[in-house]
């Protein structure tokens, strides 16, 4: 069973879909049944951060070893991370429409996600404007590390200093306090693991595709 984790991914995500939609949830004012979005919206961001983190790990490895395969991995992890970021934005936007009443609000976490997207789109543009492979690997690696650290500051530290509409900020109760009762945790944690594994799976397929394309071109 080499690919046990792929089976695990499928099982966890099936469980998330079925359990997430059917298992009873606590009734909350405003949120009502939309609280089920917790199983889909929040894990998207966790997966995105996980993929970007792994990308930075590969960038560090690539910088210290000059091995081009690490660069391919870093690139494809970023690409997959962007997909999850877009999905997180869409699910968040729909949720915001039904709870806060607008598709987009000027909230510190929403701005953080927009900036994350800008940073990684800039990363892709930077890669596009460099032709030499060695040079591209090294320079985009440097930018990847630099940007990720500042991004962590932006989405990790600054939101705690200002108010946010999100649960757990600015006087809003966090989900952990009472909403996330034990039944929800039973779905939420498997959902997080499932989505992260799915992200890793997609990224590994993309890495293999891009390796094959590189071989074919060479």
């Amino acid at each position, binding site marked *: 069973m080499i690919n046990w984790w792929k089976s695990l991914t499928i099982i966890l995500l099936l469980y998330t879909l079925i359990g997430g939609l059917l298992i009873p949830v606590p009734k909350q004012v405003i949120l009502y049944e939309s609280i089920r979005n917790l199983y889909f919206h929040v894990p998207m961001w966790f997966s995105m951060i996980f993929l970007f983190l792994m990308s930075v790990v590969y960038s560090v490895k690539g910088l210290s070893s000059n091995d081009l395969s690490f660069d391919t991995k870093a690139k494809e992890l970023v690409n997959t991370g962007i997909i999850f970021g877009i999905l997180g934005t869409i699910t968040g936007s729909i949720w915001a429409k039904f709870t806060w009443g607008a598709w987009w609000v000027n909230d510190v976490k929403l701005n953080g996600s927009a900036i994350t997207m800008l940073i990684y789109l800039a990363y892709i*543009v930077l890669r596009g*404007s460099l032709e030499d492979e060695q040079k591209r690997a090294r320079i985009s690696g*440097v*930018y990847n590390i*630099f940007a990720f650290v500042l991004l962590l500051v*932006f989405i990790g530290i600054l939101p705690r200093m200002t108010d946010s509409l999100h649960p757990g900020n600015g006087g809003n109760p966090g989900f952990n306090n009472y909403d996330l009762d034990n039944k929800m945790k039973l779905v939420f944690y498997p959902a997080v693991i499932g989505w992260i594994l799915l992200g890793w799976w997609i990224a590994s397929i993309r890495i293999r595709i891009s390796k094959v394309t590189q071989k074919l071109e060479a």
Partner: protein
Amino acid sequence: MELRQKAALNGILLYVISTVFVAYLIFSRLEELSTWVALLWIVLLFASTNASINSFRKEAGREFFYYYSIAKPQAIILSKILFNAILQFVIAALTLLLFSVLLGNPVENMSLFSVVLFLGSLGISTILTLSSAIASKTKNNATLTAILSFPIMLPTLLTAIKASMLCGLGFSWEDCQVFIVTLGLLNIVIVMLSFILFPYLWRS
């Protein structure tokens, strides 16, 4: 070595003067603090972007090999950061002076405001230095410097704006301590990262 380019330096100073003058013609007098602070930081941001876009251009050609052979990358990045920071302080001081003369000065706690201005300028100029080092390796230098640096500059910029708003309203050290300390720590992180990462850029 940048001091040799007198025309570029004067150009940046003139850029600041004309931008502030345009703002003066539009607003003539700015009483509202939030607009004043926002305008000040926008002028600073664009002046410093203009100033540092060129900071690695000269190293792209033959002179690059000369510097490469005589200096360590750490020494080069430190000197670049230092030069750009000093230039940025000059720009900031000039902008502040012009703003006070032309648009009025609504800031209540001036000494603390200067500290914020100092720290914010340092952060912005350092991020721009590394970004322009990255962008100098590509062909479309100017655009790339901007798109690489603006999103990663936002933590510094937003903290600086928030802190300067508080100082402008006359809060004391205790009240905006959090923001100023954050700003200082951010600067340390940025300088350290540039210092560690630059040698990898330089080698290519």
